[in-house]
């Protein structure tokens, strides 16, 4: 079955060699890379391949602790989605983490407050939260949650969140997604209110600021791996291993290429 799938993809690959025109700017190399990735993904869904132990990511472990502490203090939690909207991949990854947060929050009975700066992100977040609450059998909590849209413009959005933070005084604040300059406005103020802050971002330029103002940080690719970590089942853990494999392959490719170029 799996081999059948892989074979059909290989077939498509061969067809595409035939049909490839010069206009699209993509080289043969890119295509091979993509297909290698795709095949890796499909093959690795097979349960025959054992998953490996992975290192711990402190930020993911801390999610529950932060929500627990928030509950003890009787305060809500605040989830802030990134600036890049769904269907950007960073936003999708952030939404997956939100799903986990919602599940935990439902278990603890802690309401979630979540402002957004994009309509589609807001709708996706609503669905994630609803689903999280449903899977923990605490759908009534939705009444206490508030998921809403503020404005598309970045700095009014940041100002709105700051005012919101001052008002609701959350026990924990989560930032997941791509952030730009507004990150320091948000995190600096969040830190002053004394909330635990956990951030996950793929915007490298903002990492120094997140490091200095947040308690935990999922850096770069850790945000993308986070959702697999969270699901913690065989298949997801295998996908982490696969990501590693792709990285190792990239490293090897670089080294080989250096060798070839200098030959």
């Amino acid at each position, binding site marked *: 079955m799996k081999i059948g799938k892989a074979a059909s993809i290989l077939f498509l690959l061969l067809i595409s060699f035939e049909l490839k025109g010069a206009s699209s700017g993509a080289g043969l190399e890119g295509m091979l890379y993509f297909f290698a990735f795709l095949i890796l993904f499909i093959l690795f869904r097979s349960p025959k391949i054992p998953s490996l132990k992975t290192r711990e990511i402190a930020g993911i472990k801390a999610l529950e602790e932060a929500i627990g502490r928030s509950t003890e203090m009787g305060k809500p939690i605040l989830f802030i989605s990134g600036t890049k909207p769904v269907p950007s991949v960073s936003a999708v990854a952030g939404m997956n983490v939100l799903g986990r947060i919602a599940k935990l929050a439902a278990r603890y009975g802690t309401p979630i407050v979540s402002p957004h700066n994009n309509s589609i992100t807001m709708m996706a977040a609503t669905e994630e939260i609803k689903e999280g609450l449903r899977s923990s059998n605490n759908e009534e909590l939705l009444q206490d949650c508030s998921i809403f849209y503020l404005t598309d413009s970045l700095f009014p959005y940041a100002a709105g969140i700051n005012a919101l933070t001052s008002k609701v005084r959350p026990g924990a604040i989560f930032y997941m997604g791509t952030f730009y300059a507004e990150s320091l406005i948000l995190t600096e103020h969040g830190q002053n209110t004394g909330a635990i802050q956990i951030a996950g971002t793929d915007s490298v330029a903002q990492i120094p600021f997140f490091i200095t103002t947040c308690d935990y940080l999922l850096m770069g690719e850790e945000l*993308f791996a986070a959702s697999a970590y969270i699901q913690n089942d065989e298949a997801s853990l295998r*996908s982490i291993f*696969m990501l590693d494999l792709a990285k190792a392959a990239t490293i090897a490719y670089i080294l080989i290429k250096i060798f070839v170029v200098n030959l």
Partner: protein
Amino acid sequence: MKIMAPLLIVFIGGMLMAFQYYIDIPLLNNIYKGVLDWHMVIAVFALVIAVKSLIERQWKNFRQKTEHPVYPLTTLISFFTVVFLGIFFGLKQGSPVNFIYNNLLVPLQATIFSLLAFYISSAAYRAFRAKNFSSTVLLIAAMIVVMGRIPLGDLIATWTTISISGKDFAILDFPGWTRWILTVPNVGIKRAFIFGITLGIVSTSLKVILGIERGWLK
């Protein structure tokens, strides 16, 4: 069916879009061009829902008196004022909305943003401590770049330039060191992040397309 249909849409849509980058079939290219237009049209309709949620929330705050009623009213009134002005007078240069934009929105946004200058100076004083090896490295690199980016750095370099066997050599060459940090170690690590993040993006994309990642539709 309820779950299968969206999964199928994601799979077919995702595969078509991924393959069209590599395969030159006119039909696929046309679909691709159409899809780009569709995205724009769909986004407009989602905005209606977002605005509805904004208004509802402010209205709820006003009704339930969770805060002083002045605040939600401010948002509601300013929102509707701008929308009505826009509908009746348009958005061209010199229209009321354009005037509000130039004279209120732009300077006020800039002011919010300028809070950052204050925050960064307070962070410099409170948070940037040489607590351990890695934070010391961060600090030193930051200070070198701080000096290297201002004209004073150029001046110091000229002042401390000495001539060794006919070659000019600056002892305190902050601009030079800055250039080195930015173009050597910085390029290395940023490239590592680019690789890691891109691979993360590609693998997450594939997980979404193949339906492994389906949190959004349950």
